């Protein structure tokens, strides 16, 4: 969803991976030093947002190449988080930290079949499930959402209409950093209770694919993320039970599907026209 936000405003955020990694570390540190997983989540959001600000300054403010700066963020994240984990967390003996507990939503959890699966999760899962429609409402029904989309499609027109293009893009990238930070927190505090080096393992890039597959719509991205998640679960299942099917097959499938969708062979998926393009007022 972070990706949707940033790309809708016209910034191709390849740094999602690094933002998630920073978020995962910040969550663990926040949970350990500030007391509890909620502070960890807050820390992850703040750090994610700060990295978003950095990326926004370099790519939007200075107009540097968005892809190169994104790759730079990823390298920086991999280096800094590993370094901090080894030099700060390990010597301090910080390993397992308080993580989110699984909670059951009252009443709903007792729904047969669906209840124990969908409504018995960590709070972060519920937050994510609620955030997607909220973001969709924001993007498609509010004037601010319109500003974001206009900036991503045709910045010159948006500029003419009095929208501050750079400001909107700053906002888009920072928001995507906050969301990616939450994604990282989910990895370190939702699924586990610790930070491990490079624990995102390419999930930021998968999120980019989910953005495409979800046709740049928050709910689409949610659905696509679910599909990618299901593929990952299926892979684990196949590996565990040794079914004789190559486990790489289900993992590969979503990417092939995304390519097919992009090619316009099954339902057209069109990127925001100006995603990845720097906008400078003085350029002609």
């Amino acid at each position, binding site marked *: 969803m972070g990706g949707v936000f940033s790309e809708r405003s016209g910034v191709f955020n390849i740094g999602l991976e690094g933002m998630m990694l920073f978020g995962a570390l910040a969550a663990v540190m926040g949970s350990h030093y500030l007391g509890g997983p909620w502070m960890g989540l807050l820390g992850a959001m703040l750090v994610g947002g700060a990295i978003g600000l950095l990326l926004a300054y370099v790519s939007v403010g200075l*107009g*540097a*190449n968005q892809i190169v700066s994104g790759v*730079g963020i990823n*390298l920086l994240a991999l280096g800094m988080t590993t370094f901090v984990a080894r030099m700060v967390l390990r010597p301090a003996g910080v390993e397992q930290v308080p993580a989110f507990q699984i909670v059951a939503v009252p009443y709903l959890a007792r729904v047969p079949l669906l209840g124990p699966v969908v409504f018995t999760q960590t709070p972060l899962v519920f937050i994510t499930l609620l955030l997607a429609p909220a973001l969709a409402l924001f993007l498609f029904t509010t004037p601010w959402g319109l500003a974001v989309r206009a900036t991503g499609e045709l910045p010159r027109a948006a500029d003419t209409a009095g929208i501050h293009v750079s400001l909107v893009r700053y906002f888009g990238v920072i928001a995507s950093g906050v969301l990616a930070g939450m994604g990282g927190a989910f990895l370190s505090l939702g699924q586990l209770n610790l930070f491990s080096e490079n624990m995102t393992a390419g999930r930021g*890039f998968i999120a980019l694919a989910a953005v495409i597959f979800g046709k740049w719509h928050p709910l689409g991205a949610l659905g696509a993320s679910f599909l990618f998640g299901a593929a990952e679960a299926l892979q684990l299942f196949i590996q565990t039970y040794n079914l004789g099917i190559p486990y790489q097959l289900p993992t590969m499938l979503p990417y092939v599907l995304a*390519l097919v969708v992009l090619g316009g062979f099954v339902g057209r998926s069109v990127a925001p026209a100006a995603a*990845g393009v720097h906008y400078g007022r003085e*350029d002609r």
Partner: protein
Amino acid sequence: MNGRALAGRLLPVWAVLVALLLGMVPVGLAGVNPAAAYEEILRGALADVYGFATTLVKTTPLLFAGLGIAVALRAGLVNIGAEGQIYMGGLAAAVVGLSVHGLPSVVHVPLALLAAGAAGGVWALVPALLKVGRGVSEVITTLLMNYVAIYLVSFLAGGPLMEPGAPYPYSRPLDAAAQLPVIIPATDAHAGILLALALAGFLHLIFGYTAVGFRVRMAGANPAAAAYAGVRVHATLVAAMVASGALAGLGGASEVMGLKHRLFDAFSPGYGYDAIIVAFLGAGQPLAVVATAFFFGALRSGADTMQRSLGVPVAIVFAIQGLTVLFLAASLALQGRLLRWARGWPQVAATLPAAVATGVTDPERR
């Protein structure tokens, strides 16, 4: 060139220096003398024969893939798919090296390289066709293709091609005739680097002195004008992309044939992504790409020495590289502005092709 313009040109140098200085902070906080750490990196990367050999080994895939991305860049295309093309190239080279026997080395090696180039090229052909045929951004498609390639290699290295009884997913060793020779005795440095350097020189000549190179640049910089001048824009873009993928594919082949001698699952630790940086920082110029690839290769190799002797994690070098990239990208963007300001002449001052400076061709500018 007046003072302002000179200051503008030197910005990238400053960017690297500032990044290196900033990198000292965490090293210092970890209780290690930063100067000693950098000395170790320098010593480890260049001072002895083993370090230098390791530097060459780490430079080779970056150089191949960086050259590939640079070619695409010249045509105004951003190829994020070098990683996947590396995997496909390595796979093709491994298949040729595993299945063909009895050939002399002078035939076997070129055959495997050819297969690798073709595999990498095909992997780039799909995004290229989607780009010119359907208008789908190559940034997205090349990224997706990476995963298909990585999982395909993972499947084959852990399945049909796996050595029976191996503890990890890897294949049997390649036929000895398909392995690249070692160029520095008793080290890992292999002939891949020579091939990469030769290709860099070749590309330098193509882009600097031939009509082919000029057509590619035109098609990238201004498709409308290029078409008007009689350049077959679509065909040129597809060809540039395929050449880009083929070069990255050769990078994968050189890893498999020169270094690992087997097809390993996940054999590239993200060389294709690092190569994006190498190509961009080299501004798409083949000889500059040689320099940036070597710089990155040396940092990686020196970092290993630093970790061994001082206990500073290698990871800090990733952080320094990330900072370097951010500073350099920012400084290149600033440089464009500064030069324009210095000369007061907006069009001419753009030292880089527009597509290099801002990343993606602006649909509005056509």
